[in-house]
């Protein structure tokens, strides 16, 4: 039990100074007199006279207090009576001094003197000052204090001088200090010694505080990640201030360094750069062709027919338009050879768009529901735009926002995140958005009919060829929380048979569950993966757990290789990918969709951009999205929400909101599964942990010894100090307490006898050297004699080596 005996003499001494010297109340009276002096100075006709008068009074009072009051012999009754008479006489003279002063000025010098009320106030000032001068008892102190307070308040109320306001603060601080000293003086005579035992170990307390602070930071950061990263208005360069700031990233003063489209387009002001005037803006079709390569021409099986020239031309036109309008996506492609990095024509910038918000994020542009003959298509019979409601205008923070859709609360975290996309070089009427977008806002756009839905359920700007360049689209989106989908007892555990008012019609869901035509038995393979994925009970697993098992297997075993495309003559790309276990992301996603659909779970292919956090520009506070970020993934339909899944292992998984309870439960189950799957390793780790806990002191002592080996390279005085520190830490490691009032000699004698192998003579030399270093004058503090040198080195060496060797001995290394 660590006890500490303390008697706070130093604190009493520091507080007692003012009381013993008796100048506290006098100083307050001086400050109060200064306030009256400022009042009189403001209205005085002869300032020199006033200053001289005030100086004489102050010097007289200070001298009287120092010479007569504080140094007076209280035991001498005659002297005390004489002193009382003098103080009374001088006090009356001082109180009358302002009136006499005015009389002298007006009668002898012809001045106007001071106003009558000021004379009365000055007389009160003199009374307060003299009261403070002769105060020796507590009551006199209080009376003087109250008079001083009155003078200051009166002076503050009747003067408009700035100096008066500046006087109040030191007076208030000093008055508070005086009150504290009064109270402390009244109780300090009765102080008694104490012994204290901490209720909570200091180390534990520090850990708890740190853990609490860490938890707080994590909680705040998780809820307000956007604000944490930007700290808008907090840092000078974050902008938002009223002043101009060259390096500001936003706000009123930005723009000096962010010259529009100088190198890259950071800002969206009026731009006259030729970069934006004659550049060719790519569409999704162009980007896909550039990045993924051209599709392999399909060998169509034409029926025998009479060729009609006009009809053939129409079919060609339809096919081309279908591709360009993103209604068809061939999964059978031929990658381009050589440099595949996309270079937009007429521009130095590679950015397709800029993104503000939390990355990584899947920004979807289009989706496909039907897979036929190696191509993904959008069915005409599925028109998700009819299911989505019309956007509704809502004002948020004085800005027009469009409310797009409402999601089931069980699957969505109620706090939405905000993102912004800034389209630079991209041509599409569709808006890039996350799957669960709920609100959209474009500055000064307050008409809901500016927004609409495509047939595949993507937000778009209807009646436009494409979204205008440099448009900043603000969006709010919800983060899925998938814990209900993993619970066996939750009504949402089934994804295959969803039926409610908010979900799609069953015949539509049936189309999303129609497995692609492939020769591979994807269902059997999928069930095999689920069985081997570590799921405790594959039969009792929920649909989402099956999806996760498939995704986990694909991410772990299928290698992302953009060049590993099927040969041109391959008819079944899914079978090829499953055999090779490698391929580009769109083929892995296709395989994932096929396997998930084989289990009867609605799923579709999604394409868009993957916002990579690697491209985050800290200075600009935004992330560039390049053509190389084009990406294809899958989405699972779960009770009204399309939830993105990422089967390609090189891409990060989509975000999911987990409460700490979810995290704890899932971690617990993961640990249980790991222990079941690797019992030997778990047992070994447990044994190691137990041994570590049991031998924690020895391990800590070994580590200390290793660290302190470096002290061998230090000069000897430093080694001595390090040795003392090492002895202290070894005591701390073994939980030994230092008895109160232990001298350094007693402590070192005990410690060296326990923890040093050097002879006793060397111990004595070491103790003397330490005492000299602590208590000797600075000139002799570090002087080490020749005959002491070897003894000191032996002790330092011995303590260090014993730290290393004692823990290895079988005996308990402490007495």
């Amino acid at each position, binding site marked *: 039990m660590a006890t500490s005996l*303390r*008697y*706070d003499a130093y*604190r*009493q001494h520091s507080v007692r100074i003012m009381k013993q010297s008796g100048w506290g109340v006098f100083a307050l009276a001086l400050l109060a007199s200064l306030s009256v002096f400022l009042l009189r100075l403001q209205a005085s006709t002869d300032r020199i006279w006033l200053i001289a008068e005030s100086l004489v009074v102050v010097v007289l009072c200070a001298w009287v207090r120092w010479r007569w009051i504080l140094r007076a012999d209280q035991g001498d009754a005659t002297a005390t009576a004489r002193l009382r008479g003098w103080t*009374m006489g001088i006090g009356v003279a001082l109180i009358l001094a302002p009136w006499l002063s005015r009389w002298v000025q007006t009668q002898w010098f012809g001045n106007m003197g001071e106003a009558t009320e000021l004379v009365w106030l000055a007389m009160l000032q003199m009374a307060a000052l003299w009261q403070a001068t002769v105060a020796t008892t507590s009551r006199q102190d209080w009376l003087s204090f*109250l008079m001083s*307070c009155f003078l*200051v*308040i*009166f002076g*503050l*109320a*009747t*003067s*408009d001088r700035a100096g*008066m*306001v500046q006087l*109040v*603060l030191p007076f*208030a601080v000093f*008055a*508070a200090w005086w*009150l*504290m000293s*009064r*109270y*402390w003086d*009244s*109780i*300090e*005579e*009765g*102080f*008694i*010694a*104490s*012994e*204290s*035992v*901490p*209720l*909570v170990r200091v180390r534990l*307390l520090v850990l708890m505080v740190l853990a609490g602070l860490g938890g707080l930071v994590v909680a705040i950061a998780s809820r307000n990640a956007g604000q944490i990263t930007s700290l808008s208005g907090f840092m000078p360069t974050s902008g938002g201030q009223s002043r101009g700031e060259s390096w500001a990233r936003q706000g009123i003063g930005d723009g000096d360094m962010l010259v529009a489209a100088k190198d890259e387009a950071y800002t969206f002001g009026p731009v006259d750069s030729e970069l934006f005037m004659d550049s060719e803006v790519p569409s999704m079709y162009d980007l896909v062709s550039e990045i993924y390569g051209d599709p392999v021409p399909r060998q169509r099986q034409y029926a025998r027919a009479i060729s009609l020239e006009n009809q053939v031309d129409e079919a060609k036109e339809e096919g081309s338009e279908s591709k360009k309008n993103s209604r068809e996506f061939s999964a059978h492609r031929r990658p381009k050879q050589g440099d595949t990095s996309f270079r937009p024509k007429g521009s130095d910038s590679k950015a397709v768009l800029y993104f503000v918000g939390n990355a990584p994020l899947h920004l979807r542009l289009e989706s496909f529901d039907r897979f036929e003959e190696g191509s993904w298509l959008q069915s005409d019979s599925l028109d998700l735009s009819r299911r989505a409601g019309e956007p509704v205008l809502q004002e948020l923070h004085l800005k027009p926002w469009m409310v797009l859709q409402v999601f089931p609360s069980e699957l969505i975290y109620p706090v939405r995140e905000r993102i912004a996309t800034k389209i630079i070089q991209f041509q599409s009427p569709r808006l890039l958005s996350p799957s669960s977008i709920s609100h959209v806002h474009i500055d000064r756009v307050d008409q809901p009919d500016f927004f609409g839905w495509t047939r595949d359920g993507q937000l778009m700007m209807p009646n436009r060829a494409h979204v205008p360049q440099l448009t900043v689209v603000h969006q709010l989106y919800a983060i899925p929380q998938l814990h209900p989908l993993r619970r066996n007892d939750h009504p949402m555990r089934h994804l295959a048979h969803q039926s409610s008012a908010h979900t799609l019609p069953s015949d539509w869901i049936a189309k999303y569950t129609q497995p692609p035509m492939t020769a591979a038995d994807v269902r059997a393979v999928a069930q095999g993966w689920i069985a081997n994925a570590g799921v405790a009970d594959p039969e009792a697993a929920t649909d989402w757990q099956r999806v996760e098992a498939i995704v986990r297997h694909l991410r772990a075993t299928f290698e992302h290789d953009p060049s590993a495309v099927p040969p041109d003559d391959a008819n079944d790309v899914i079978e090829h990918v499953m055999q090779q276990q490698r391929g580009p992301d769109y083929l892995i996603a296709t395989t994932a969709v096929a396997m998930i659909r084989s289990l009867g779970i609605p799923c579709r292919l999604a394409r868009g951009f993957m916002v990579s956090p690697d491209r985050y520009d800290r200075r600009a506070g935004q992330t560039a999205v390049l053509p190389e970020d084009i990406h294809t993934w899958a989405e699972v339909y779960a009770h009204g929400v399309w939830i993105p899944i990422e089967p390609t292992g090189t891409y990060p998984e989509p975000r999911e909101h987990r409460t700490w309870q979810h995290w704890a439960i899932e971690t617990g189950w993961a640990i249980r599964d790991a222990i079941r799957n690797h019992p030997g390793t778990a047992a070994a780790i447990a044994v190691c942990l137990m041994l570590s806990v049991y031998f924690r002191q020895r391990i800590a002592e070994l580590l200390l010894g290793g660290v302190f080996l470096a002290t061998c390279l230090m000069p000897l005085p430093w080694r001595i100090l390090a040795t003392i520190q090492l002895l202290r830490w070894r005591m701390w490691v073994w939980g030994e307490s230092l008895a109160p009032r232990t001298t350094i000699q007693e402590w070192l004698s005990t410690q060296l006898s326990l923890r040093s192998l050097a002879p006793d003579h060397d111990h004595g030399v070491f103790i003397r050297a330490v005492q000299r270093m602590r208590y000797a004058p600075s000139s002799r503090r570090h002087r080490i004699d020749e005959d002491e040198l070897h003894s000191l080195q032996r002790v330092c060496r011995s303590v260090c080596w014993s730290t290393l060797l004692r823990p290895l001995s079988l005996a308990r290394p402490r007495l």
Partner: protein
Amino acid sequence: MLQQWLRGLHGGLNHDFCPGMNRYVYWLKRPIGWVVLAFAMSLLLGIYVSHQAFLASGAIAAIGVLGCAWPWLSTLALRGEIHWGPNRCEEGDAIESTLTIVNRWPFPVWGLVVDVDSDLSSSAATQPLNISLSKIPALSRTSFRWHAAPKSRGVYPRRTPRLSTAFPFGIWSCHQPLEVRDPLIVWPRMTRLTDVPPNQGDRQLGIGGTTDRAGSDGDWIGVRPFRPGDRLRHVHWAQTARRDQLIVFEHQSLSKQTISIALDTNAAQAATPEQVDCMVRILASMATHFLAHAWEVRIALDGAWRPLLPHQKHAWLDELAQWQPSQDGLPSLSRRSASSMNRSSHASGWSMNITAQPALSMSSRQSIEAVDRVDWTWCVGEDTSRAHGEPIGRGFSMLSVSESLDATLPNVWRQVCAMTPTDSIRCAS
């Protein structure tokens, strides 16, 4: 002239012109009253004179709020317990008091005052002072120890001890009651007496003092021939060898004598508290002294006789510690106690009377003598001129409250015991 004028001024300034209003304005005498008043005045000045006065209002309000909230918060998480080393002691004994305070705040608490009876905060060598605690560390259990010497008998604490603080400004004080594990019982001071009157007891008892009657205890007083039943270890072998027959030692025998001590309740009612305390001290001193010498002791408090048993020492001393003269009118207590003494005393017993009224004592003594004998009367008086600490007559001693019993009582008692039993004991009869 000046002095007279000043005295008049002082009297005028300190005269209470409206005593009836004091109950409404006495709060102004406290610092918090000044703070409230100053705040109100500065507020009025700020509203009607100049807005700058609001600055003073803010400063005063800050001091007021801090000065009230800090003590309140500080005492909120403090729990204290007070206990004493042995929880019984005599008047004037130094006893270790321990105050244990648990601070559950994560910050220290400064400037506490322990509000206890003045007898518990002062030792014999020091004047009473406030016991103050400079600091209670955060999240700690802190023990404070001091030595107190209660000067008067009784059960302590007489009022609930409190832990109070007005830190930092002393303008508002908050309290927290302290728990008392066991009360401290302070017995009357018992003067150590050395002399004991000769044992005239005729009751043969298993315990008691030794007399020179033949028995088997104490010292040997002679020899006699062996009788069947004598123990062999009592054989005087030298005499046996000389007389050629078994000779054994003749030993003393044990006997017990009775003493009855009456405390004059009637006199105690009219006596000062100091006299009552002194009377109780004499009673306790005599009782313990005779009990230590194996006498059978009976005392009369409030007119009722009761035996004192050695193994019940704590019980009757606890009672003496709390005893106060009854305020009910009792009929002629001296006579009553004497008559009851007469009824219950043994023929061989001693009797003592402790009173505080010499005149009454003398008259009552005569009346008592008429019905029974009182061997000695102790009178505790305030008049120091008559109290010499010596017997002023046969069977009567006068003691003064202004003198320490430890100094006077042993001397007087030695003189009493030095008198022959016939002279000393039978003088009043």
